[in-house]
């Protein structure tokens, strides 16, 4: 699998992502600059976390207009795989590649803590290493992760099974109103969603920060090993 990571001004988790990808592919991913106007021949494009443009105006809003994003739109059209984490997820919604929006956390505070996610389906490149209903731990670190969408969009997401991950308790119970398990107040406890062709995945928490026992565990690793297995040339 050849992967590329896009760096915007203010991106700050590109190194974390590169470490996770290198761990599963054995090679360093290509780093792209937001002003690049060509996408190299890659199997996966990652939009990593951070504060592109300082999160000013709205998280991801200005990055969504970067020159590289028109290439990424075209790449999505061709069925390419895209992973957006945290700010990357926000950029994907701002671009319209994924539906909905991410509002300020319900408690209005930045949340840096571990959370547990429930895997909602396991027939995608991003989730197939887990079983449906599996629960795993991952760090989160964001101020605007409160997923929202209008009723129709929400019904469509749920109806078509496009929710990839939900915030849940360690035993797998999801409860939108429970601030312990759904700390940012997301609708339907949504932590990550998929595009209709399931090739684009956006999520708020950071599985890339939990891929090494030394840093506290490998709970996030299945996402990356799964991608390598699913995307073979």
């Amino acid at each position, binding site marked *: 699998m050849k992967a590329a990571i896009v760096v915007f001004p203010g991106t700050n988790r590109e190194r974390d992502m590169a470490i996770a990808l290198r761990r599963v592919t054995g090679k360093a991913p290509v780093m792209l600059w937001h002003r690049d106007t060509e996408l190299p021949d890659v199997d996966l494009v990652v939009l990593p976390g951070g504060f592109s443009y300082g999160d000013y*105006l709205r998280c991801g*809003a200005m990055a969504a207009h970067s020159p590289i994003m028109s290439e990424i739109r075209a790449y999505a059209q061709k069925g390419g795989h895209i992973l957006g984490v945290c700010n990357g997820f926000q950029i994907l919604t701002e671009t319209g590649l994924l539906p909905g929006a991410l509002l300020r956390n319900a*408690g209005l505070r930045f949340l840096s803590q571990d959370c547990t996610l429930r895997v909602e389906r396991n027939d995608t490149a991003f989730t197939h290493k887990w079983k449906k209903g599996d629960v795993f731990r991952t760090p989160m670190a964001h101020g605007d992760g409160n997923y929202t*969408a209008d009723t129709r969009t929400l019904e469509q997401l749920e109806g078509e099974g496009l929710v990839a991950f939900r915030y849940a308790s360690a035993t797998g119970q999801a409860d939108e109103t429970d601030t312990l398990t759904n700390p940012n107040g997301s609708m339907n406890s949504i932590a990550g969603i998929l595009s209709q062709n399931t090739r684009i995945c956006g999520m708020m928490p950071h599985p890339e920060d939990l891929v090494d026992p030394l840093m506290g565990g490998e709970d996030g690793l299945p996402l990356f090993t799964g991608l390598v297995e699913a995307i073979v040339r």
Partner: protein
Amino acid sequence: MKVRVTVMLKEGVLDPQGKAIGHALHTLGFPGVEAVRVGKIIDLDLKSTDAQAARAEAEKMASELLANLVIEDFTVEVLG
């Protein structure tokens, strides 16, 4: 020309900031507050000297960048 773009969350979209401010105002001793909505103002200084043109330009900026029409509405006002 000075133009003011006002961006508010759409009716029906939950406003966590507004809710928190309402709560804080109550505990500060303002029981008369019934609802709070928070929005953004973006004041633009435009080179254009024509009000019509300035408004059109600002509307374009608002729909392309300044507002996210999935969750927000905007209004444009030419201040002169």
